[in-house]
């Protein structure tokens, strides 16, 4: 048989091994597989390629994708990733390790997760963070289940209709099978309505609510009065937030909320066609034992040296099995490292500047687009980097024109609006070029 570069087995090696085992051939190791199930055919796969052929093939596929200037968000934000982030995260000691079960030789992973937890806590204003979840929408679904676990015997969770559509869809999927009854809080003027919330709370049986901070229209919601209403109903207040924006906007902690979830993608993770990203979850101290996922804690070793371990594991699936409230095992550890390295580089000043540049660019674009006369304002609420407008021109023609000009912008929303997003990666020249194209529609 021909050799293959990932398999070290030589003919001689195989002979030695088979002899020790006491069988004549590799096939003899599968005598317990009933003959009728043994696959005797050929896999319908291409022949083995050389490494160069594989690289060329993927380069040709990558070339079939349009490289666009991204002026859209809707849950995936095109912020700049500093060179240090992929450089550090591709170090094989981080990349090729497993979950840090053997703490003595996993202090690198454990330490950065501890740093990550600390950073998530300071951004959200919460007491404790877990080590990561899959993505933002699944983090919201986990928070929904957590609300039930925190409140006992209640079965309803309320979702704001201003949450991003993909967050609502994933939470609905989990709710359908987990037996959670979902209610909805209506929007008014582009923001979650306190009146509608109060009405739903009066109906009773509410374990928790999930509202966005920033919402599907890019609006920074005013959550004044929410905490009081929710806590009076003995329910849990959950905010779904953009963690990058939390450097400058009022945090879930400051709003008096109990749990903060969201997607860590805006913190240094490339848009990457939707993944891998990283879900984050942080909560008040009282709820830590109901929080899903791994948690790293600080302790000392037998010599008194400061060190880090996975802790509070009695919550987790491998201990609780069918009594567990979450099944999460593998999470997104390496993506938590992306976030940690990114936040280390940016610090409070850099993250503020990212927000100022995004804010400046978004407001400039917003005003320039309105000047073209091709759009109408929908909401007049404060926004940060993303906003929606009502198009007065044919949306498809608009999108096509922008696409042909090399832009991904004017993303259609369910309500018939178009949304735009500007990050610090976009220059004023690019914005002007986009607006010039819009004028031609």
């Amino acid at each position, binding site marked *: 048989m021909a050799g293959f570069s990932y398999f070290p*087995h030589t003919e001689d090696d195989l002979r030695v091994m088979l002899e020790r085992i006491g069988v004549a051939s590799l096939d003899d190791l599968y005598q317990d597989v009933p003959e009728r199930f043994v696959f005797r055919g050929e896999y319908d796969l291409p022949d083995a390629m050389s490494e160069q052929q594989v690289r060329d093939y993927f380069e040709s596929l990558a070339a079939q994708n349009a490289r666009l200037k991204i002026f859209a968000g809707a849950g995936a934000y095109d912020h700049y990733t500093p060179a240090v982030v992929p450089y550090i995260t591709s170090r094989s000691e981080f990349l090729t390790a497993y979950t840090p079960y053997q703490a*003595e030789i996993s202090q690198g992973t454990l330490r950065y997760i501890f740093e990550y937890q600390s950073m998530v806590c300071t951004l959200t204003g919460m007491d404790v963070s877990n080590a990561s979840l899959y993505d933002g929408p699944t983090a919201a679904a986990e928070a929904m289940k957590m609300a039930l676990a925190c409140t006992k015997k209640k079965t309803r969770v309320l979702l704001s209709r201003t949450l991003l559509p993909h967050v609502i869809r994933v939470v609905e999927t989990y709710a359908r099978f987990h037996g959670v009854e979902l209610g909805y809080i209506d929007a008014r003027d582009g923001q979650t309505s306190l009146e509608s919330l109060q009405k739903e709370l009066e109906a009773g049986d509410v374990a928790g609510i999930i509202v966005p901070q920033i919402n599907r229209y890019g609006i920074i919601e005013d959550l004044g009065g929410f905490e009081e209403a929710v806590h009076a109903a003995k329910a849990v207040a959950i905010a779904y937030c953009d963690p990058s924006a939390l450097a400058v906007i009022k945090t879930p902690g400051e709003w008096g909320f109990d749990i903060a979830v969201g997607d860590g993608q805006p913190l240094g993770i490339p848009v990457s066609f939707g993944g891998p990203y990283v879900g984050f979850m942080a909560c008040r101290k009282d709820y830590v034992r109901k929080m899903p996922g791994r948690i790293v804690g600080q302790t000392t070793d037998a010599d008194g040296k400061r060190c880090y371990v996975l802790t509070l594991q009695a919550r987790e699936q491998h201990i609780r099995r069918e009594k567990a409230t979450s099944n999460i095992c593998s999470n997104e550890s390496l993506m938590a490292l992306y976030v940690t390295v990114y936040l280390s580089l940016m610090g409070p000043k850099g993250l503020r500047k990212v927000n100022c540049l995004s804010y400046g660019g978004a407001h400039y674009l917003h005003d320039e687009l309105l000047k073209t006369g091709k759009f109408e304002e929908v909401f007049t609420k404060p926004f940060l980097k993303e906003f929606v407008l009502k198009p007065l021109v044919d949306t498809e023609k608009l999108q096509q024109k922008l696409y042909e000009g090399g832009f991904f912008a004017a993303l259609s929303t369910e309500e018939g609006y178009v949304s735009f997003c500007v990050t610090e990666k976009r220059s004023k020249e690019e914005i002007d070029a986009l607006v010039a194209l819009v004028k031609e529609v």
Partner: protein
Amino acid sequence: MKYYDKLIFELSKPGRQGFTLPENGYGRCVKELPEGLRRQSEPELPEVSEPDVVRHYTNLSQMNFGVDTGFYPLGSCTMKYNPKVNEEVAAMPGFTGLHPLQPGVDGAKAVIEGLDKALSAITGMARFTFEPCAGAHGELTGLMIMRSYHMRRGDLARTKVIVPDSAHGTNPASAAVCGLEVVEVKSNAAGLVDVEDLKPLLGPDIAGIMMTNPNTLGLFEREIGEIAALVHACGGLLYYDGANMNPMLGVVRPGDMGFDIMHLNLHKTFSTPHGGGGPGSGPVGVAAHLADLLPTIQVSGFHGNFGVMLRAYAYILMLGRQNVKLAGKYATVSANYIKESLKDVYKLPIPTVCKHEFVFDGLVDDGAREGREGATTLDVAKRLLDFGFHAPTIYFPLLFHQALMIEPTETESLETLDAFIDVMRKIAAEAAEDPAILKEAPHGAPIRRPDETTAARQPILKYQDA
């Protein structure tokens, strides 16, 4: 490995910065936002220079052990070599720069379609969804499909799922999250699902069964044909936990064994790096009669972990038709070689031929004597670290008290296996002579054994608490 003590926060000094950003030429800033919507205090993030960041994380990485560092025989985790060309492919800007909702993504779609076709060919399933981000996420998605199948038929009484006592912990947890009640089926003395114990469990309330084949003892469930017939006859479906698919490459396809739904762990069988605990990818494959249910269940934000899918597809194309078939058999021969080489010094509860992994139940002579405690599986695991090996999976499966689960994979050489065998024998000899050296291990790692009790009783979970 040396010990490095700092947290990034401890390097912080006001005035330092690690970022470069363009000047704000818009003349507008977040200060314009209403006071009541603005954050009141700066987040407590570190202020450090770029070289500080690079050196700090490089130092942290040097306290870590990965597959590239050394042998990682962690049972059930399939710690095979992670090919480097996969990393190059995943980092191509033509993929990383794609917004998930943008048009003009023919190349990305071709990746998903190509991987779907390849995995379907390898498993005998009809179609895959790639939304699940990990194995457990795949299990949950698969069970949602199982429930949807029954609900669609109006068969609402099927609220229970059968799970073997040897199953991964995620199986019963996924079932619970999916709103199903778990019914446990026992293993027999041979370590296989006990068909006689299964029969009385089957009825009109059973949605299906979750099976891992080979199971977590590394044993092929040889009665799978009968089990499939029984479960199908009672109206249930069969779910295949693909965590242990690796040794079956080139030998058996789950679809041919009668499984209706399955997941694969791309980060196990298909060589994508584990990343210290993710990102993984747990695509779910279904038989043709369930394919139309896939679009009805959205379990993650966009298209799943696309970057992981790219790596897996590159791996399959590198191996090609010829070599995918060899991976499973090489993994199996390596596992059996270790098992046969150590079974005189470690207790082997089930002596039959294993697949990719097997389980010892502690030492034959743990060194326990009058007035002296013997060495446990934990002690063996910790002592292994001193010799430059990662430990096997310990205390799982739960069927044995001193379980030590070893999985070498197909990417380790005979020399590496022999070195591991020598060390395992040396440790066994040390234990028999005096378990103390094991009990105090590791001696050469960056830290000694951590105090986990205090960590849990007085949790310090962030820098600000310390």
